[in-house]
């Protein structure tokens, strides 16, 4: 029957080439047997219309061939939850890094203008789409590797297999160490204000009035200026704020903002010592310098030494307070860990 041959030929085109002949031969045998039986029952060959109706019932060639294909996914259901989580994290980190880089480029560099800001905002969709494309590409490759047995899937899901109920965030109505847990809006506000603070911080080098107000004019007119070490100090502070912002954003996205922030507090206290130690390590405590040493040394030299000594003492005091605070936090963490161990042993 010519129509059946044409149908089978159309199905063949949509089958994987390795199995085409085998599948078509089997399908032909089954359909010819069915056709023979139909014709025997009628006592005559099928008319063209009847044959068309019969083939229509079998379904379109593409549809028929599709049933022979294994189910295919770009990213399968086993990997999808991990993919979705990574995509959200990638978006968040991408936006944080992009925002910081943009702010630095627009404000710290020479080309600060409203149009540069608008351009940066308009680039956001393209940046996000590129991020999504790369994450999707990587996970599609993982899916391919998993389905072709190149990678063992349990490796991918190991973190979820090893989760512990103890890591679950406390309920909103439960107090933690006598304190009310932070709400979502509080955690969100911390991230938003943290980001605004970072922008403000990055604007300070070119706009010192943002920090000391009218004092900026006095500083400009004074015979003193800040030693280069303050620039390193400034970037240390920026790095600490970026780290804290990233940490809090991640907690917000993971839904763990209610968990105690002991580790974060200790890490930030410890890292906060770095810029202070940097200032303390300056030779002869010379954190403030004269703009024109040759001209002004005789007149302002003594005052400068006094200012530097006070700056040194203040930083030293701040450092001592930070060390005490860090020791206190560490002591509390060790004590709490000991209490939990004792309680678990009961």
């Amino acid at each position, binding site marked *: 029957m010519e129509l059946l041959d044409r149908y089978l030929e159309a199905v063949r085109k949509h089958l994987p080439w390795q199995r085409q002949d085998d599948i078509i031969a089997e399908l032909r045998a089954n359909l010819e047997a069915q056709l023979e039986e139909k014709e025997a029952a009628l006592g005559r060959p099928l008319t063209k219309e009847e044959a068309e109706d019969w083939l229509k019932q079998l*379904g379109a060639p593409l*549809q028929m061939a599709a049933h*022979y294909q294994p189910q295919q996914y770009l990213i399968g259901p086993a990997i999808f939850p991990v993919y979705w989580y990574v995509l959200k994290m990638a978006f968040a980190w991408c936006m944080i890094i992009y925002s910081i880089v943009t702010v630095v480029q627009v404000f710290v560099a020479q080309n600060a203008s409203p149009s540069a800001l608008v351009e940066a905002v308009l680039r956001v969709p393209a940046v996000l789409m590129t991020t999504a494309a790369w994450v999707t590409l990587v996970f599609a490759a993982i899916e391919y590797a998993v389905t072709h047995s190149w990678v063992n899937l349990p490796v991918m899901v190991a973190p979820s297999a090893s989760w512990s109920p103890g890591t679950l965030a406390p309920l909103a109505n439960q107090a933690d160490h006598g304190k009310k847990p932070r709400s979502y809006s509080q955690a969100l506000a911390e991230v938003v204000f943290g980001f605004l603070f970072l922008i403000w911080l990055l604007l300070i080098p070119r706009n010192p009035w943002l920090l000391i107000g009218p004092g900026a004019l006095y500083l400009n007119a004074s015979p003193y200026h800040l030693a280069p070490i303050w620039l390193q100090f400034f970037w240390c502070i920026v790095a600490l704020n970026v780290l804290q912002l990233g940490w809090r954003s991640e907690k917000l996205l993971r839904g763990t903002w209610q968990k105690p922030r002991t580790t974060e507090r200790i890490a930030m206290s410890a890292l906060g010592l770095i810029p202070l130690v940097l200032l303390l390590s300056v030779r002869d405590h010379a954190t403030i310098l004269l703009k024109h040493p040759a001209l002004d040394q005789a007149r302002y030299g003594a005052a400068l030494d006094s200012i530097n000594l006070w700056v040194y003492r203040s930083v030293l005091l701040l450092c001592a307070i930070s060390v005490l605070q860090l020791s206190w936090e560490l002591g509390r963490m060790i004590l709490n860990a000991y209490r939990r161990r004792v309680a678990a042993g009961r």
Partner: protein
Amino acid sequence: MTLAENLFENLRLELRRGCLTLAVLAQLRQERYGYTLRKALADHGLVIDESTLYPLLRRLEAQGLLVSEWREEDKRNKRFYRLSSDGEQIFNQLLQEWQSINTSIHATINANIDSNL
């Protein structure tokens, strides 16, 4: 098709999918080729589209539940399928599972009817 009809159709297909596999395995305790298998199932009230049944046979064979061989019958080459030894074992397990589910569902439905009376 309305939303409710569409939902029903999806649920019906989901419900049938596992049952069809069980019915195919049951029928293939005796060797058959595709068309006679389809007819045997239809005779027992289970009508399956060709586009569903023939690829299903291929999948079950790939999973090791069926074995097949090409043989000539009535001057035509046909592919005959039957249960493999693994297939027989799994079929018996599935059958037990299905009977257990069937009993539980009947008990649940009857319990609901009794409580409504």
